C-alpha cells in the first residue's frame, strides 16, 4: 500500500462508514451565536488570563485552574502559531534548545530519548514584548524497557509562572498524580523545590500508593487489576524539581511515569522500573544557565 493507495482507501472507507452526510447549517449557526455571546460575556475577565494560561498549559501535576472557561479562552489566545505570527517568536528554536539542554543532563548517551529533536509544545505565551516568550512548556518522549514516559521542561519569566505557594498549596492534591513537595538545596546553596510521585487517584477518586510495598494482586486478578497494580508498583510516577533562577525565571523539569499498562497490553515482560533519572540530574538541568528563555 503506497501513499496514494492510502488516500484513495480513506475516501472509500469514509464513504462506506459514514454514507451521505446531510448538511444543514442552521444548528451550527445557532451554536456559533451562542458561543459568541458567551465569549463576549467572559471577555471582561481576560485580565486574569495570564495566570490561567500557565495552569491550562497542562502540567499534569499542577492544580487545576479555578475557572475552566477563562482557562479555555486563555488557551485559545495563547495559540503559539498565532503568537509566532503576531510577534515573531521563535518557539521551535527555543524548544529545540531547551530539550537539548535537558537531554544533556538526564540522558547524555541517548539511551531513552531520540537524538533528533522530537519535542511537542504543550504550552506557550508571549511576554507582551515584541518577539518575547513569556512561558514555554515542551515535552519529549522517554522510552525505557519498552515503556513510555515523558520528559517535561517548562521555563517562564517570573510574571508568567505559577506562584511557588501554589505548588504545595491545598489545591496541590487535586490532580491525579500526587507528588511530595520538599525543600531542597542546589550545590550552590540556592533553594529548590523537588518531589516524587507518591500516589495516584483512580477515575473513581480512589487513591493508590505508588510505593513498592503495595500488595501484590491476587493470582485470579483480572487483566485490568493486574495492570493497575503494575502501575502502582513499578511505574514510579516520576519526579520533578522547580527552581527559581537568580534572574527570576522559573524552571520546572520533570520526568513522568513509564507506562506499564502498555507493557501489559502488549504482552511484554513485567517489571518496568522508575524512569532512570535521579533528582540530582534534574537539579543539574534546572540550574543550567542554558535552560532559560531568551530575554
Amino acid at each position, binding site marked *: *500500500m503506497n*501513499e496514494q493507495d*492510502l*488516500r484513495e*482507501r*480513506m475516501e472509500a*472507507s*469514509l464513504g462506506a*462508514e*459514514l454514507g451521505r*452526510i446531510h*448538511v444543514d*447549517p442552521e*444548528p*451550527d*449557526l445557532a*451554536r*456559533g*451565536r*451562542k*458561543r*459568541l455571546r458567551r*465569549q463576549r460575556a467572559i471577555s471582561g475577565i481576560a485580565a486574569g488570563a495570564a495566570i490561567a494560561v500557565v495552569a491550562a498549559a*497542562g502540567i*499534569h501535576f499542577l492544580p487545576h485552574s479555578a475557572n475552566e472557561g477563562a482557562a479555555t479562552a486563555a*488557551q*485559545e489566545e495563547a*495559540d*503559539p*502559531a498565532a503568537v509566532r505570527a503576531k510577534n515573531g517568536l521563535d*518557539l*521551535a528554536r527555543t*524548544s*529545540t534548545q531547551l530539550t537539548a539542554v535537558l537531554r544533556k543532563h538526564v540522558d547524555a548517551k541517548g539511551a531513552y530519548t*531520540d537524538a*533528533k*529533536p*522530537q*519535542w*511537542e*509544545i*504543550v504550552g506557550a505565551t508571549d511576554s507582551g514584548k515584541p518577539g518575547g516568550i513569556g512561558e514555554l512548556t515542551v515535552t519529549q518522549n522517554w522510552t525505557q524497557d519498552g515503556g*513510555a514516559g515523558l520528559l517535561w521542561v517548562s521555563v517562564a519569566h517570573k510574571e508568567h509562572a505559577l506562584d511557588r505557594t501554589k505548588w504545595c498549596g491545598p489545591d496541590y492534591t487535586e*490532580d*491525579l*498524580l500526587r507528588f511530595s513537595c520538599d525543600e531542597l538545596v542546589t550545590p550552590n546553596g540556592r533553594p529548590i523545590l523537588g518531589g516524587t510521585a507518591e500516589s*495516584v*487517584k*483512580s*477515575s473513581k477518586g480512589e487513591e493508590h500508593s505508588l510505593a513498592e510495598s503495595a500488595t501484590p494482586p491476587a493470582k485470579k486478578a483480572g*487483566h*485490568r487489576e493486574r*495492570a*493497575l497494580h503494575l*502501575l502502582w508498583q513499578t511505574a514510579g510516577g516520576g519526579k520533578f524539581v522547580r527552581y527559581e533562577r537568580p534572574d527570576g525565571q522559573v524552571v520546572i523539569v520533570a520526568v513522568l511515569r513509564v*507506562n506499564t*499498562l*502498555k507493557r501489559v*497490553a*502488549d504482552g511484554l515482560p513485567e517489571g518496568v522500573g522508575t524512569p532512570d533519572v535521579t533528582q540530582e540530574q534534574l537539579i543539574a538541568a534546572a540550574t543550567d544557565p542554558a535552560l532559560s528563555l531568551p530575554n
Partner: protein
Amino acid sequence: MTSRHQRDQEFSDFVVARRSRLVGAAYLLCGDRHAAEDLVQTVLAKLYAAWPRIHTSGAEDAYVRKIMVRTNIDASRRMWRRELISDELPDQVVPGPELDGRDELISALAELGPRQRRVVVLRFFLDLSVEEVAADLRVSPGTVKSQTARALDHLRRRLTDRRLDELTKERT
C-alpha cells in the same frame, strides 16, 4: 445586508461546502462518529465566533484544521491527565471488540496512537506537507516524519495481517 446577516450567510456557505469533509477528517481522528460530530460542532462554533477576522484573511480552512487538531489534542490530553487509570492509554495498540465489522482501514487507523493518527489524517486525508503538519501539531518536522513512517508501517502490517487471516479462514 447587515453585518450579522452577512456573517451568517458567509458562514452558512462555508458549512455547506465543507462540513462533510470536516466530519470525515474528524471521524478519522476520533474513530467514533458521535465524537467526530461533537468535534466538528465545537470547531464550527469557534469558527463562527472568529469569523470576521478569519474570513477577512481567507484563512478559514487553516483555522478550522488547526482548531480541530488542537481540540482533539486537548481532549486526549485531558483523558491522559484525568482518566489516567484506564485500559485505554494513548499510543497502545489494543484492538477492541468494537472494531469488529468496521471497515478494515478505519479499524486499522483506530488502532494507531492519537499522535500517529493525527499525522496520517493531516498528511494523507487533508494533503498537508510535513512542514504544515509540524506547524499544526506544534512538533518538529522530524517527529512528523518518524510518526508517519511508524504509522504507515503499522497500517501496512495490520492490513496485510488481516488479509492473510481472512484468506486463511476462507481456506480452512
